[in-house]
């Protein structure tokens, strides 16, 4: 910020004293000194590191990544067994991190938007309840929530073997979903050959169709002023082709419910308690923050906007959709991005409940087994850095697309 140099003295030539007295050159001197200090400091640290490592008989090497890991991971999104390498264990952990972060981001957004809108509700009781929710969850460490939810669920839910019929509260929801103290068992899809592929293809196509229809309707509205109905055609496009395909192809896709075999459930999908607890705690904790962001975003839109829209004759739903929300989104999205980043980073607390994310595999068991602390932690940080930078750049692209276009 210092731009105090006198332009008239430029032709006097340079002498060594000017390195300190002339602001034009002083900045170079300052930066040069800083750079020297930085290089000196870093080399001092690295030198210490090398001395300490050689004294302890260690070295930096990445060979351990290729060695067999020798430990089991209970949630395996890709193929993995205890003979797989440490590198593969880390990848499994990384995918587990992404799974829980993704699930938590979506549910936190839903919870946050609902709570944020309800907090502005005219209903005194509901808005006070939402305020209570937000304050209670924002002001208590997420680690405590993760542990409470994990311990409470493992303590209060029945064991799988109770589902044999002796314990009255141990019954499956719709005969499909079982809440046990080992986790939640939900049905999985059973696909029947090529017909199933066609069915899923039809579903995806109708999803695309909905977007295309809504786009077309908007374009028609803007071009000609003709208003096509939006609600029921969307639902119809979404559901009807899928239903038709399902029955014409002869029910190619079925649900496989978990079944009690002996002391445990088989079949279906097993969502482990650690995943559920982490997911639920992150969602409900971050949801409280997102609720505040949503509330701030809606309140930031001046009342005049709503009134102007009303005076143009728009109905309340349209005011919200066409006037308030597009403007509020601009305020909401930047803090929302940082909440997504927080979820991703907080998912590393998985280690407290034994969910095998990358902190549990690479930063936990692999680190303890191989003793390669520096390498493991470097890789771990690199992974989180890459994820954070990716999320923020993707969301920034979106943010730029909804940003106020100024001349």
């Amino acid at each position, binding site marked *: *910020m*210092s*731009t*105090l140099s006198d332009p008239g003295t430029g032709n006097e030539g340079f002498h060594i004293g000017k390195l300190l007295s002339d602001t034009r050159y002083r*900045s170079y001197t*300052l*930066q040069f000194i*800083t*750079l020297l200090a*930085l290089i000196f400091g870093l080399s001092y*640290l690295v030198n*210490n*590191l090398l*001395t*300490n*490592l050689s*004294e302890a008989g260690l070295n930096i090497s990445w060979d351990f990544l290729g060695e067999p890991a020798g430990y089991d991971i209970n949630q395996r999104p890709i193929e993995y067994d205890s003979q797989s390498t440490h590198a593969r264990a880390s990848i499994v952990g990384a995918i587990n991190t992404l799974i829980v972060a993704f699930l938590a981001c979506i549910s936190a957004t839903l919870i946050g938007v609902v709570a944020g809108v309800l907090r502005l*509700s*005219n*209903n*005194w*009781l*509901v808005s006070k*309840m939402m305020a209570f929710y937000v*304050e*209670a969850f*924002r*002001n*208590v*460490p*997420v*680690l*405590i929530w993760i*542990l*409470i939810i994990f*311990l*409470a669920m493992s*303590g209060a839910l029945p064991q799988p073997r109770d589902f044999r019929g002796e314990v009255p509260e141990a019954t499956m929801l719709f005969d499909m979903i079982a809440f046990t103290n080992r986790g939640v068992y939900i049905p999985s899809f059973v696909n029947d050959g090529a017909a199933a592929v066609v069915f899923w293809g039809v579903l995806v196509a109708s999803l695309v169709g909905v977007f295309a229809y809504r786009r077309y309707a908007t374009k028609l509205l803007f071009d000609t002023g003709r208003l096509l109905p939006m609600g029921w055609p969307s639902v119809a496009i979404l559901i009807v082709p899928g239903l038709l395909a399902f029955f014409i192809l002869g029910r190619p896709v079925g649900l496989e419910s978990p079944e009690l075999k002996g002391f445990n459930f088989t079949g279906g999908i097993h969502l482990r308690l650690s995943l559920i607890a982490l997911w639920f705690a992150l969602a409900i904790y971050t949801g409280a923050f997102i609720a505040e962001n949503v509330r701030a975003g809606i309140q930031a839109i001046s009342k005049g906007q709503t009134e102007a829209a009303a005076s143009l004759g728009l109905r309340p739903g349209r005011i919200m959709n066409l006037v308030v929300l597009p403007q509020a989104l601009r305020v909401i999205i930047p803090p929302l991005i940082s909440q997504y980043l927080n979820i991703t*980073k*907080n998912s*590393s*607390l998985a*280690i*407290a409940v034994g969910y095998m994310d990358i*902190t549990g595999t690479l*930063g936990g068991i692999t*680190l303890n087994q191989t003793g390669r*602390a*520096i390498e493991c*932690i470097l890789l*771990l*940080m690199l992974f*989180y*850095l890459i994820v*954070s*930078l990716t999320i923020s750049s993707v969301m920034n692209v979106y943010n730029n697309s909804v940003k106020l276009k100024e001349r």
Partner: protein
Amino acid sequence: MSDKNSQSVSYVRETFLEQSPPPLKEAGVVKWMRENLFSGWANSLLTIVAIYFVVNIIIDVWPWFANGVWNTKSLAECREILQGANAACFSVLQERGNQMLFGIAYPADQYWRPTLGFVLLFIAAGPVLFNKLPKQMLYFSAAYPFLAFWLIWGGTILTPIMIALGLIAGYYAFTNVERLKGFALGVVAGVAAATVCVWLGGFISGALPGLIALEVIPSRDMGGFMLNMILGTICVSLSLPLGILLALGRQSDLPIIKGICVVFIEFIRGVPLITLLFVASVVLAYFFPPGTNLDLILRVIIMITMFSAAYIAEVIRGGLAALPRGQYEAGDSLGLDYAQNMRLIILPQALKISIPGIVNVAVGLFKDTTLVSVISMFDLVGAIRGPILGSTDWTGVYWEAFGFAALLFFVICYGISQYSQWLERQLRTDHR
């Protein structure tokens, strides 16, 4: 019209009616309820659902809380008394409360020291937080860090006194040299004077280890909520100046300094605190010269301070960016140099704008101090997870124990955020 006089009309009112009270549904509780709870069918439905939830929760929680047992030696004994009734076993707080507050290793006969330190913290923080308190109290605030250090860690009182004297000497050297030779040389002189004084003072306090001494308590014995408070207060106070420097560096015109600050801030903000704590517990020791033995709590303080400094730097950068450019230019045109411009014009305004953000970071940081339990330090959460729930007497009392922990954090964090909102209203200089 003219023939329509009072005789031709059957009745003419000659006096005003008494003002009647508003109809029942337009006044008092009923009106309030109609407006706020039952203003439409959707709203009424919401209200009924909400009431159902609240009532259900109260029916479940209240007897659990009210019938709680407070005086048993173990959970088994507690369950015997309760006979399967739905009630809490608060005796864990009675029995192990001290461990939750002070950690498992802190000597019980010395509990008064951290307690006194905690109480004095409020007296010391008072004049900083509230402008209306007498300014003389600030002297106590300045002395508090040294007093608290002495109270919590023990040893001779000479050690903190010597450090304090060193800092005072450094401050005088800085002010005197700065007046004559400028800011940069002033800083150099101040640091030099402080170092020399602390170094000399080390001999004096080393020679008299028994003078007004308290029992020395090693850092590894710190634990419980005390550890959270220690980490929270120290790290926030250290990271504030560091964060200001980083923010100024990131805003500066000098590309190398800017680059260093950007890389540091973005790196720290991109990784979770847990990885930094792993660094503190297993890697950081490698970076110190061979033979140095920093204890874990100090290494953790270093890493958490760096962590929160990066976040505070971003908040303050927002404040700096929010200032109109004219403020910088006005400072320049008055002939102030960079240091004067920042200290007198820019930072007071920028920091004022950043207060809510800084408080958010501080609250978040205080909550994040629970993460040290992951690297097996016995802070509040660590003490509950480890020695308390792990003991045979109390395994399974998680609701009571974690509920207590949550309540402690809630009281402090909610208090801080309410204070910051109050302060924001106080500092608002525009007229609304």
